[in-house]
């Protein structure tokens, strides 16, 4: 016993030392009203349309992050003086028709904002992105790591960036078998109204980069894309990822590397200090005005793969909410019985979802279990409709 106590103290000391302490930090000095233009996008020289997103920075304390820049004019210019206009598709996004441009030329972006300022990016070379060889995964003891393999047989690309869309099937905690008939009682739920199985989806929120610049061949081997913990419901049934690959120039790669360092990698003892970030877009009417963003040009390659739960070890997903079941009876127990089913489950809209019937001695249910939508309705977190691409 004594030994045990000692053990705990030692652990405490060491844990405090080794883990240090991480506390939220919200200095109130951050209230200056900066309002810089943010430009995001890739000039797609392939067969897809180019989408450029324009927005403004907001204060850190601001509740919203997306502050779209509307009513701007956006034009792609080539070094041969060809121009291609983009049109607003709302929400600060500007799109072109599919352009299929010459990959041996250089391109730049010209922006005019509604406040009368003009912006111009540097000319960037168009790069043909080599195809993705494969997207695979390795099973680790606490989850699954998805990776990408690619190569450029011409030894010419070296710098890569990826983003992705993920989609997965997931289930609510409880399978609701009954539904209110909106007037008197609950009735069995028809298959077209099921709310047990849904498709969830997500997009990449971290910058994923890879480089083969140091290797003798332009080979990217098992470059990590995303790690899914073993307890994630993303892999409880069937999971799919659509990976997009962008070839980069070394300048563009550096920009994203610093952006990633500044916003994703700070805090440990040996990490670099944040540094200023200069993209390749400049304000031509006010040279001191910072502009955020880096424009690159080239084709995009993509690949979709699926992972079934059966390909993975038996892992137990952790449901994101704490769930429990209550029971509503037609005649509640006690001196003054009430119809709890009528009271709690029939009225619509209702935050109680009927799960399954409870039987007494007779053939008919004497009541129903129920739970809340977090636990019984998957559609609050996903889509009931199968995506068109889903196989």
């Amino acid at each position: 016993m004594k030994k045990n106590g000692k053990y705990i103290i030692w652990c405490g000391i060491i844990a405090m030392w080794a883990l240090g302490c991480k506390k939220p930090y919200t200095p109130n000095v951050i209230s200056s009203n900066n309002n810089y233009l943010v430009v995001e996008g890739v000039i797609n020289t392939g067969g897809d349309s180019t989408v450029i997103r324009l927005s403004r920075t907001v204060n850190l304390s601001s509740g919203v992050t997306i502050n779209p820049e509307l009513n701007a004019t956006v034009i792609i210019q080539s070094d041969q003086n060809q121009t291609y206009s983009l049109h607003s598709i709302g929400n600060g996004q500007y799109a072109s028709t599919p352009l299929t441009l010459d990959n041996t030329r250089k391109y730049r972006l010209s922006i005019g904002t509604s406040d009368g300022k003009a912006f111009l990016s540097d000319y960037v070379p168009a790069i043909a992105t080599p195809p993705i060889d494969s997207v695979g995964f390795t099973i680790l003891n606490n989850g699954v790591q998805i990776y990408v393999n690619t190569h450029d047989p011409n030894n010419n690309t070296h710098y890569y960036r990826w983003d992705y869309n993920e989609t997965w099937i997931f289930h609510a905690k409880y399978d609701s078998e009954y539904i209110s008939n909106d007037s008197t009682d609950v009735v069995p739920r028809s298959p077209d109204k099921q709310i047990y199985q849904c498709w969830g989806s997500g997009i990449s929120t971290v910058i994923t980069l890879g480089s083969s610049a140091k290797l003798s061949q332009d080979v990217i081997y098992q470059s990590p894309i995303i790690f899914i913990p073993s307890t994630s419901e993303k892999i409880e049934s069937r999971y799919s990822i659509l990976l997009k690959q962008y070839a980069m120039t070394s300048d563009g790669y550096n920009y994203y590397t610093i952006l990633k360092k500044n916003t994703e990698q700070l805090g440990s003892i040996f990490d670099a200090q944040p540094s200023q970030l200069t993209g390749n877009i400049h304000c031509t009417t006010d040279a001191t005005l910072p502009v955020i963003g880096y424009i690159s040009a080239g084709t995009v390659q993509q690949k979709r793969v699926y992972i079934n739960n059966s390909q993975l070890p038996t892992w137990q997903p952790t449901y994101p909410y704490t769930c429990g079941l209550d029971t509503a009876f037609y005649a509640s127990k006690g001196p003054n019985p009430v119809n709890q089913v009528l009271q709690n489950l029939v009225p619509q809209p209702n935050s109680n979802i009927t799960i399954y019937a409870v039987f007494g001695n007779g053939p008919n249910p004497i009541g129903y279990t129920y739970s809340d939508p977090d636990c019984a309705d998957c559609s609050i977190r996903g889509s009931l409709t199968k995506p068109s691409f889903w196989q």
Partner: protein
Amino acid sequence: MKRAYLFIIFLFIVKLVSAQNTPEKNISVNFQQTKIEAFVDELEAKSGYHFYVDTAQFDSLKITLQVNDKPLAAILGMAFNNTIYHYTIIPEAAQVFLTKGKQIKTGLASGYFNNTRPGHNNQVLPGVAAATAVTATEFSGDKEAPATEATIENKTYEIGLKTNNIQPGNSILSGYVKDIKSGESVVGASIVVADTKTGVVTDQFGYYTITLPRGRQTLIIHGIGMRDTKRQIILYSEGRLNIEMQEQVFALKEVKISADKVANVRSTEMGTNKLDIKSIKQVPAVFGEADILRVVLTLPGVQSVGEATTGFNVRGGSADQNLILLNDATIYNPSHFFGFFSAFDPDIVKDVELYKSSIPEKYGGRLASVLDVTDREGNKKLFTGTAGIGLLTSRINIEGPIIKDKTSFILGARTSYSDWLLSMLPEEYKHSEASFYDVNLGISHQINDKNNIYVNGYLSHDQFKLNSDTAYSYGNKNANIKWKHNFNDKLFSVFLVGYDRYQYSVSSDANPVNGYNLNYNINQSNLKADFTYYVTRKNTIDFGLSSIYYKLHSGDEEPYNNKSLVVPDVVPAEQALESALYFGDKYDITPNFTVDLGVRYSIYNYLGAQTVDYYAPNLPKQSSNVLDSVTYGKNKVIKTYSRPEIRASARYNLNDNTSLKASYNTLTQYIHLLSNTTAISPTDVYKLSDPNIKPQTGDQVSLGIYKNLQSNTIETSVEVYYKRIRNYLDYKSGATLLLNDHIEQDVINTQGKAYGVEFLVKKTEGKLNGWVSYTYSRTFLRQDDPYAGELINNGNYYPANYDKPNDFNFTGNYRFTHRYSVSLNVVYSTGRPITLPVAKYYYDNAERVYYSDRNAYRIPDYFRSDFSVNIEGNHKVHQRFHNSWTFGVYNLTGRANAYSTYFTEQGGSINGYQLSIFAKPIPFINYNIRF
């Protein structure tokens, strides 16, 4: 009795007169468990001396001794060493007296002749040196008069060639101050002539030289951790006096921060702090192990970037602008274990000296400071050792004589055993590894009175792996040999040959295709000769030369194994030679006004083999602006920089306890550290100045007022300084530092300015002792290279990373009894500057931040207090082991000081965090044993 004394004295005087004409006969003996009778018989037969001995008193003695060709005195010395038996040789009568317990003194007790009046020195019958002095004569093959060994206070020692009339004027007295128990030299002991202002301090070898008026003098000697003592002398002419001092028996009794109470006010040096290991050990340290650098951080003008770093910043200098010397070897990385421990083994360090404003002309090559760490010499008399057990480390040291009184060694070693503790952490941290060890070895050998040899070696190794598959390791390797030679009593010298190396490596094997091994190392070979010439009592000259040959292997990346596709990438080695010639003169214009003027001329040659790119003038250094690329052959001088450096200081005594000091320094640094982290880490890159990267230069002016109160037990000082730095290298945003063949394309020149005022109050004696310091200082950098491309903060001044305007330290120790004491340490400083995010935006599907101007904001202020209790074991002198305990709490108030703050994106939203390293009170315990 009186008669016997007089008789012996008479005989001795006869000896003095005739000794030079009777060469000693050397004899060889071999005794095995020999009784006294046989021992005496054989020696009588071989030496021709007659022995007087009461054999009954010696009946328990058995002698085992084998000696070849040694004088009689040496044989007797060896036979009776460490026994209660004594011998006295009367060479003139060819007689030897052997006694038990008491020694027959051939000298007189002082004051024996009560009628002697000062001023009539010719009438004084000399008190003659004791038997030990006689044996010293026999040992020394030196033609000159041997040093007098003065061990007794109430005895008058005669120095020099005795004359009937003492000539008026001055003579030089020199010698060593040593610990009587261990024979170690006492460094920084002050020798002051009573009733005058004349005083000197012993040098790093315990050697002193003082010019005195001839005649009768009393010398007062103070030493750190030593009992104050005095010696009475009659100085006839130049001579030598070795002084043996007794250690304070109670280790905690006395704490001195300064080498010498009076030296604080009287020396011309300013901005110099000396700490001895005893005061260092009293300061509470995290994990309970005394940490030298952490104590240095409590001194005014010294700051650190953060808690887990042992890199330090002195008066606005960056961490690499400190020259860190361990026994004259350059230590490039002074930290272990992410900076939680410093590289110096507290058990064998003797003292630490930090020069921050008047840097002596013999040091150079760095802009901000010199930290001079000196290890002890081994015990020359007997084998001793210490061992300590802490939470994460254990250490041991052993020392002792190789040849008694001549050669000794000291060996210290430390190792950590933290891996088993790390394995107890939660899963995500479990696979971290961290460990270190270091080994120190020192050998000192006294060839004769004029020649000493010192050999020092240091080896350290660190390795760690933080929850990742990347393994880091680094280490220092240092070795040097010092030869101290005294030409005569006016000119002495130290010659040094040494080799220093710092290396690190990073490796990863998690991905077979990308697995790599990266190695980096700096090597320097040093050659140094320092001379001190003692011209007159008022004038001392220092001069010398030094040369350092650098060889940097600035990165070598190799595939981890044959599955790896990593292309070997070797940054070509860099070579340079940094040489310097210096001359300094310390002159007392009046007893109250002293100036110390020095000049150091440094010459730097950047050497081939190397390929150097030359850029178009007035254009950013970019690959597109390369005009020419020239390849130079081996040892070809590619570029030479040279610069005279001024080291000047002056002191004026307002009165006995108050002085004003001023100093001006210029410094040059030819080696640059490039780091994009805030601490020194094993991924930093050193770069030698080359045609594209100019040496850093700096100058500093400082003024100070020093006042001692309460009979020198309280020392106070105020210093102000202003400093300029040029060509300090900062890096461009997103610079690649490692494995960069063209690093000049990624760095920018900055200039800096720093100013501040430092207050210090020290109490050196009494039950309560310690120091309080307060510093107000500012440090700014500005990018002044118009061709750098991008301008940080549009070319305006911005605060340096280590700019912390207010800095307060209290370090105190209160002693209840000689066995129990408590220590308290309180630190407050302004938070360091950081670059904060000022806006957020959405990019690549996540919220991201836009940062402010560089270092425009500050992290919260820093406050910490530490407390410890020190318990000494009992103080019986004659016991096998002495032990002591230290326990305490680091960060008593548990304040979560921010080490850094950062903003990070999680699940699409941005959160700010502050990271604290020691966020809770951390108890510690340490057990030490001395044997």
